[in-house]
């Protein structure tokens, strides 16, 4: 297992280099960010040249990339164009988004799996059809609609919550945004769990367990659920990355100053250091989440071994 982990970590290096290079090229290829700094005005050539030199924009792109990566390995992600170090932006943005993502995943696990088990064991009953219908609705309505609607109704009409989350973004204020963020994935988790449970409910080992006289609870949780969780865990693993980046819409709606917001600002303002820096970290998060998922497989199903 240890060797497997080491190999996987080594494999991450080329993936990491490849993805960051692609992002770097894409971000820097869409136009000259210095041009945009001058607004509607034609940039004054002398000042523009100085700025290009400061941000290394006067060098060929491969050289820019090498310089950039060199700095990253010393922990220097460069400065955003408003003069703030990107690491400082990360230090404020990531904790908030991680809090939001953790809450969202907790919602997905608790509500999604519970609903999935309930419906999977009661296939065809009213509760099953009801939940299926509901998940269909949730999946088909885009997040920004649910978000804006929840914000308007709960925030403006009824005044239960504040429509905008305060800068500190305490977990209490993040509950609703996290639910909104989790909703679509939650629906998928429910459906995945339901199918998986329904399939395994007829398996031999379940029949054996029941025949042994085990309690219904023990059969469901220890035997049925554990074996049914593999597809769900795979989904949740990839969803971690999605939640971190996909928080973009939710964060904008609820005024949460997290990763999604910083990324969006970076893109709108052609702030290349911000965009590349944040995406680089997201790539690492993504890779680690996938590794964790693969390792969890063995915990759930001992037949899966690592060599």
């Amino acid at each position, binding site marked *: 297992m240890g060797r497997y982990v080491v190999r996987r970590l080594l494999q991450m290096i080329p993936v990491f280099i490849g993805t960051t290079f692609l992002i770097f090229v894409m971000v820097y290829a869409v136009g000259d960010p210095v041009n945009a*700094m001058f607004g509607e005005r034609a940039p004054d050539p002398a000042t523009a040249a100085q700025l290009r030199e400061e941000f290394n924009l006067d060098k060929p792109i491969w050289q820019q990339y090498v310089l950039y990566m060199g700095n990253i390995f010393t922990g220097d992600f460069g400065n955003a164009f408003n003069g703030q170090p990107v690491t400082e932006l990360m230090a404020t943005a990531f904790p908030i988004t991680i809090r939001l993502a953790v809450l969202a995943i907790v919602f997905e696990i608790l509500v999604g799996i519970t609903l999935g088990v309930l419906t999977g064991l009661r296939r065809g009953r009213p509760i099953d059809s009801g939940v299926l219908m509901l998940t269909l609705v949730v999946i088909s309505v885009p997040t920004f609609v649910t978000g804006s609607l929840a914000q308007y109704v709960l925030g403006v009409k009824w005044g239960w919550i504040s*429509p905008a989350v305060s800068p500190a973004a*305490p*977990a209490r204020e993040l509950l609703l945004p996290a639910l909104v963020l989790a909703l679509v994935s939650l629906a998928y988790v429910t459906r995945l769990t339901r199918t998986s449970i329904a399939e395994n409910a007829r398996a031999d080992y379940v029949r054996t367990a029941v025949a042994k006289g085990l309690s219904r609870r023990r059969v469901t949780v220890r035997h049925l659920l554990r074996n049914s969780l593999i597809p769900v865990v795979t989904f949740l693993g990839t969803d971690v990355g999605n939640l971190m980046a996909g928080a973009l819409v939710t964060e904008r709606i609820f005024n949460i100053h997290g990763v999604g917001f910083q990324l969006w600002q970076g893109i709108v303002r052609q702030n290349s250091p911000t965009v590349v820096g944040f995406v680089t970290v997201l790539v690492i998060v993504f890779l680690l989440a996938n590794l964790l998922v693969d390792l969890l497989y063995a915990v759930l199903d001992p037949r899966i071994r690592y060599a």
Partner: protein
Amino acid sequence: MRAATRTTVIRRALAAAGAVALTATACASSSDGGGGGSADGVVRAFWTDPQHPVEPANTNEVQGGKVLDMISRGLKKYNPTTGAAENAVAESIESDDQQNFTVKLKKGWKFSDGTAVTAKSFVDAWNYGALVTNKQINSYFFQYIEGYQDVHPEKGKPTAKTLSGLKVKDARTFTVKLNQKFSLWPQTLGYSAYAPLPKSFFTDHSGWLEKPVGNGPYKVDSYTKGQSMKLSRNTHYAGDDKPRNKGVELKVYTDQNTGYTDLQAGNLDVVDELPAGQLKNAKRDLGGRYINQPAGIIQTISFPMYDKAWQSEKAIKVRRGISMAINRKQVSEKIYHGTREPATDLTSPVLKAAGGYQPGLCGDVCSYDPKQAKKLIEEGGGLPGGKITLTSNVDTGSHRQWMEAVCNSINRTLGRNSACTVNPVPTFSEFRSDITDRKMTGMFRTGWQMDYPLIQNFLQPIFYTDASSNDSGFSDPQVDKLMDKANSATDEKAAIGLFQQAEKRILDTLPAIPLWYQNGNAGYSSRVSDVKLNPFSVPVFTDIKVK
């Protein structure tokens, strides 16, 4: 045994997740209260993070400008209602020849850190702003001062560190020598790029950027980038527009819609950027607390005058025809819900007639007349190549909508569906690069937001030969001559008259079609009163009263 270990793993994982969630909640409750209520008497206003560090010569967008407007005062300031330049720190700015000026400062002005505002505070600040190695985006504001070429050469290293045209005479007097005659120059000095700077700006620059210090009606108490800036009254303020509230809290929002929602929920007092989608409802939603007034911004469509196809005498007819084919009134009502005014000259209503705004100067050319339009375009030999494109970036400002409407209007006039097509450029910087590199072949969007309420600012930077924002590449010796003459005129009225003559000449050639004047829009809560926008469409914070 195996099974037992595995359960422990899962349990541990769950415990860890729980712990994370708990810590998150715990942190939250301890740092509570920062977001919710605000101190009494403080105006809570919509803000987004400024694009650059807030410093006078490096701020060219509204959000940073808002702060500078509150924390600094230059030699002049623009009257929030009339737009006229009035003395602020200056006691007098005099000249005999429109080129050499003597500036005298009033007594008693201080920065919020208690140090005095002297002639040196201005001279040092201007020298800093002009020096190319300081990479200040607004450097070009100092281009009329003698010696600018030496501190800001187009290529290579500067040969001087300070502007030779600036000389400190005594603590409250300095002289300015310009490199050309410019009679309206004193009236440009209300722009925040000309603000004085305290010593601390030069001795501790990064510290100053963290917490800017100025001589304006407010001082910065705290600034957390990406979250908020809290300002309170500057007790040292010597101006007569002292704040009528206890302070201002600028709250950073991720999205205009959220700001608007927060205004409706009563968590915010002033929003000066209403989301385009809400303009239709804003008046009804907010009761009377909605502002829609001229803002010193004009939108135009320019032609690439550097392209052969657009240079001929006949092309002038085509351009006029295109202008007459655009139904400005309909677009500004249907798309902008009355927040744009069809343009009939090249300036803005905020200048008022006294400042050179002359409605109708454009004549018939700016009114919708499809029959005449078609005739003119045909007389001019039709559109070059049979069709035309309209180019703009589409990442911000809902440009696509009006572009399509304008093209439709042209197509209907000509009775051909493909005569005008929209050419969307994905990003603003790409669009700007194309313009700067002179790559345009058809019409493209141009807009101008004034730096100061002067007719000179609406014409010279855009239409003077090789001027800094002459995107169309327009050049007419006669126009240049008229502007030079206007700048050396001894009295203001004569200068404005000459600028209007130049404007008329530009409109005859029509390198740019006036589309509409843009209004400033704002909404406010019932907690505050006396909210208005200045000619730059920035709220006049000092006047706002909190109930």
